[in-house]
């Protein structure tokens, strides 16, 4: 019956949110309990962070370049090409750096986490871990969570830097603008609230990527098909959540700081 299935769907959603909240809460609290798997955290930081550097560099560089390119014609109408640096810098640091970096890392790592943990679930490796006296949340989820949050913070800074540089390259070599003016306006325009906004976002987005990826991984059922489903859902849900939460954070920050 249609009404039963809506009720069933609502119950499943609420149950999923509850399970997600429990997993997330325990994963955070685990850092305060022994044993702590510091070696696993380093391995994950290397895999998630260092492993994502190439795509973050490329994404950042081309995004900054495209921003400069696309804004050139509009700004020229007002004779305001001098503020290209300001525009690229603010857009990258407040918005595009955090969001695009997080979306790239989500595509690469939320899927990786979901597929790795999902494969372990369907081959009973998670049960084997529990049978051998190891808490899978402490061993697998907590290191991934803290590694993602920590590394995404620095990846975003990298992306912002490379993005500003990309804008500079396009402005100077393609649009014939003055390089020192570009960097001068890029730096001058920044205020403390902009930086704060640009650095709070990656922390929150990193949290979303890791918790959503691990949640779908740890709740995988149904063999290889299930792993495929979990992987896809992890990327889709984390990407959509990043964009939605971005709006919330932006609104909150603008409300608090005024810009």
């Amino acid at each position: 019956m249609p009404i039963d299935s809506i009720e069933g769907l609502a119950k499943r959603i609420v149950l999923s949110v509850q399970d997600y909240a429990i997993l997330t809460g325990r994963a955070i609290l685990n850092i305060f309990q022994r044993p702590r798997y510091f070696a696993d955290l380093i391995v994950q930081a290397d895999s998630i962070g260092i492993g994502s550097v190439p795509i973050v560099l490329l994404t950042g560089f081309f995004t900054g370049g495209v921003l400069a390119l696309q804004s050139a014609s509009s700004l020229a109408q007002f004779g305001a090409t001098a503020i290209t640096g300001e525009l690229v810098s603010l857009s990258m640091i407040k918005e595009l750096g955090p969001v695009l970096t997080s979306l790239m890392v989500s595509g690469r790592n939320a899927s990786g986490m979901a597929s790795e943990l999902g494969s372990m679930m369907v081959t009973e490796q998670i049960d084997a871990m529990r049978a051998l006296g190891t808490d899978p949340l402490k061993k697998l989820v907590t290191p991934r969570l803290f590694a993602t949050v920590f590394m995404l913070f620095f990846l975003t800074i990298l992306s912002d830097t490379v993005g500003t540089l990309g804008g500079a390259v396009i402005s100077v070599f393609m649009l014939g603008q003055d390089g020192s003016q570009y960097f001068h306006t890029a730096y001058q325009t920044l205020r403390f609230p902009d930086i704060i906004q640009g650095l709070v976002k990656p922390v929150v987005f990193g949290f979303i990527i890791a918790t959503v990826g691990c949640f779908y991984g740890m709740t995988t059922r149904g063999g290889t098909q299930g792993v495929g489903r979990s992987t896809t859902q992890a990327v889709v849900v984390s990407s959509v959540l990043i964009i939605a939460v971005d709006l919330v954070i932006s609104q909150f920050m603008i409300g608090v700081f005024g810009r």
Partner: protein
Amino acid sequence: MEVREDPAQPVLVFDDVSIGFEGKQVLRNISLTVSTGETRILLGPAGSGKSVLLKLANGLMRPDSGRITVFDEEINSMREEQLFELRQRIGMVFQESALFDSLTVRDNVGYRLMEQKVPEGEVTDRVTEALRFVELEQTLNKFPSQLSGGMRRRVAIARAIITKPDLILYDSPTGGLDPITSTTIIELVMKQRDVYRTSSLLVTHRLQDAFTLATHTFDRAQNHMVPIPNDGLDSKTTFLVLHDGHIVFDGSTHDLVHSDDPFLKEYLS
């Protein structure tokens, strides 16, 4: 013929245990006991809930109703941290081995020891000893993907026995293996039963392997299994049969084979 000894201290007790998933009742009012030194073989067709029963015994799942007691401690409402302590005395061999594929055989078998921060040298020694039991010492530095199915199963047994557990749970240890490899695995189960006298609960749907276990004994001098003389049966090996979520038989090999129950006669034929 076999002689039943007096029941010893129970190692594992299920008392009226039931569990269901997604509206379907998998196990209903299950009551069984595994005594010290006993090997209980749980027979049942594929999909009858045998793996679920084993996971309940190890606290990996919680029953909907009933009590499960392991080493005199009630586990059905225990927290996971408390269960970790108890699981040090329980070894479990999973259906598809469940080896960690990113770790070598040495790290797989020594996993529990490494978690307990045992020194590396001692880990290697104890892993080598466990692998010697399953005759796979040469695979120390290999990865599970480089091993055959039978070898992976033997490594899984080594991983389960390395801490000399008081109870071993085997989940279809010969499932998916050819007859010759299955015999090798059953021989290892027999060796553990006869040499170390470990209590165990073995679930399987392979009648042939179950009866081999009941009718043979491990000869240490010859280092392989031999039939028990005079068509004898191992006195410490008894059977349970699971059907439609219920235990429909609980007794000796002799009683099972000579049962008049129509379902059992059909199942064994």
